[in-house]
Structures are given as C-alpha cells and as structure tokens.
C-alpha cells in the first residue's frame, strides 16, 4: 500500500471520528446521563494530557531528573486557580521553567 493511500484513509478515519457525534446528535434526543458525563470531558482529557507532560521524562517516571517542569506546572496551576488568567499563567509558568532550567 502506498503512503499516500495510508494518509488518505488515516485522514478519513480521523475526520469521521471528529464528525461522529456532531453528525449523530441532531438525529435523536441526548440521554440525560450522557449530557452529565460530557461536562467532565474537557477536565478529564486535558488533565490526562497535562500530568504526563509534568511528570514524565521521555515517557518514564525518572526520579533522578530535575523537576523543573513539575514545579513550574504546579506554580502555574496555583496562578490559574487564583487569577483565571491565561496570560499570567503562561508568563509565570514559562519564567519559572526557564529559571529552574538555568539553575540546575
């Protein structure tokens, strides 16, 4: 199979995954339990993306690494919680990471 065909089919499946519920939801009523579950989608998915970024080094828990990303991330969580500002969270988090990387 050519790479082109693989990319086209992989892209088609990705598109259908993205379209799935958007296309189907117009057809019938959304069950109440599903509506309640959907409230947790952003929180759950992004937590599942964020935490490995803070804790893992090359996909592993490595206790000998420096914890620059973890500490900067925890600081950013604190700033996001207190200020709800994307800009401040970005600035404090990046400043902390750069500082910690320079120190260690």
């Amino acid at each position, binding site marked *: 199979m050519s790479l082109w065909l693989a990319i086209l089919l992989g892209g088609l499946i*990705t598109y259908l995954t*993205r379209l799935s519920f958007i296309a189907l939801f117009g057809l019938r009523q959304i069950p109440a339990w599903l509506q309640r579950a959907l409230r947790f989608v952003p929180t759950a998915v992004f*937590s599942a993306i964020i935490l490995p970024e803070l804790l893992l080094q090359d996909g592993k828990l490595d206790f000998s690494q420096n914890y620059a990303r973890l500490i900067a991330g925890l600081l950013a969580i604190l700033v996001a919680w207190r200020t709800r500002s994307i800009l401040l969270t970005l600035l404090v988090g990046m400043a902390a990471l750069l500082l910690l990387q320079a120190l260690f």
Partner: protein
Amino acid sequence: MQPPRSQEFWAGVRAELPLLIGVFPFGMIYGALALESGIPPGTTQAMSSIVFAGSSQFITTQLVELSAPGLVIIFTIAIVNLRHLLYSASVAPHLQRLSPAWKGLLAYLLTDEAYAVTITHYAQDDNLGNKHWFFLGSGLALWLTWQISTASGILLGAIIPPEWPLDFTLTLTFIALVVPQIKDRASLAAALAAGIAAVLAFSLPFKLGIFTAALLGILLGLLLERKP
C-alpha cells in the same frame, strides 16, 4: 442581543493565539522530521491538511522510518485520534442547530487546541447564538499556523532550537483553561483520576493511555456527582 459574527470570529482567533506559540515549533519539528524519515515534501505538507492532528503525524513519521506497512499506519492514526470522539460528543449539543455544511467544516477543525478554547467559551453561561463563529476563528487560526509551520519545517528545518522549551506553553495554556473549570468535588476527582491514570498508562501502545484515562476520569466524576 448577539455579538456580531465578526466579533465572535476574532475573539476565537485571539483566544487561540497563546496556544499558537507552542504549536508553531511543534509543526516545524514535524516538517523537518518527516523529511528526515524520507517522506517527500509534498506528502509531508498534504498530511498536515489531510490528517491535521499533530501527535498522529509524528507517529506516522516514525512508522515510515521503520518501513511499517500501510495498514499499521492507518490503524495507529485511528487509535491515536480516538480522543476526538470525546471532543465530538462534547461540542455536539452546541452545534445541533447548525446546517450540515457548518457541522462538516467545524468537525474538520476539531483539534485539541481549538476544542480547548471553544468548549471554555461554550461553557460560559450566556445563551448567545453566534458561538460557532468563535469555533471557526480558533479552528482556522490553528489550521493556518499548522500549515505554515509545517512548510517552514520543510523549507528551513527546525530553526527554533529544540532545547527551547516552547512546547511547554501548550501545557500551560491547557492548565490555564482547565483549572478554572474545576469547581466541585466531582470535577476535581475527574481531573486527578484522569491525570494519574494517564501517567500510569503512558506506556500503553498508540497513546491509548490518554483516551482510557479520560474515560476513567469521566466515569469517576459521574459516580461522585450522583452521591453529593
């Protein structure tokens, strides 16, 4: 009173801007790596608009380098992108009244980064009708950045040194968007469970860890919400 369409559109573009700082180097590295793995420039660029999903494109370059069969590539792309099923379900109620053409277009633009800012916008407690223009603005801003950064990576190589931790801006923006949404015990439990499970399940093949961990977090949130 609805905000005008153009106002919603540009608000979406502006909301997307902080994420683009992290996306641009990511796209450049993808372009450079794809060439190194032997994928021709035209195919590399086309993949950024046909598949249009960063992590699955990265994995594809690795698979090509290993001369993996086409079926393995297709299967891997499909599994890595499973989490978009959750995004689709999550935005679907808000798009119900739109025309099929709008639904088709917005589904194409439903990436991690566009979803992150759009769902936060939809979650605000006003019932205004033009929010799909916000979605379009954030989605197109990301799409354009992804195409240009891929092209820059193809033409120039990854000129931003990889040791610059610009990718961290993406993580930080996700933090800034998610933390304010944690308002009660159930959502805190969902966040912690999904995060910890994702760390533990990180070595699962095809990045299945994120999808599985998210499902676990959603389930725990639902259970705790029932028994206040």
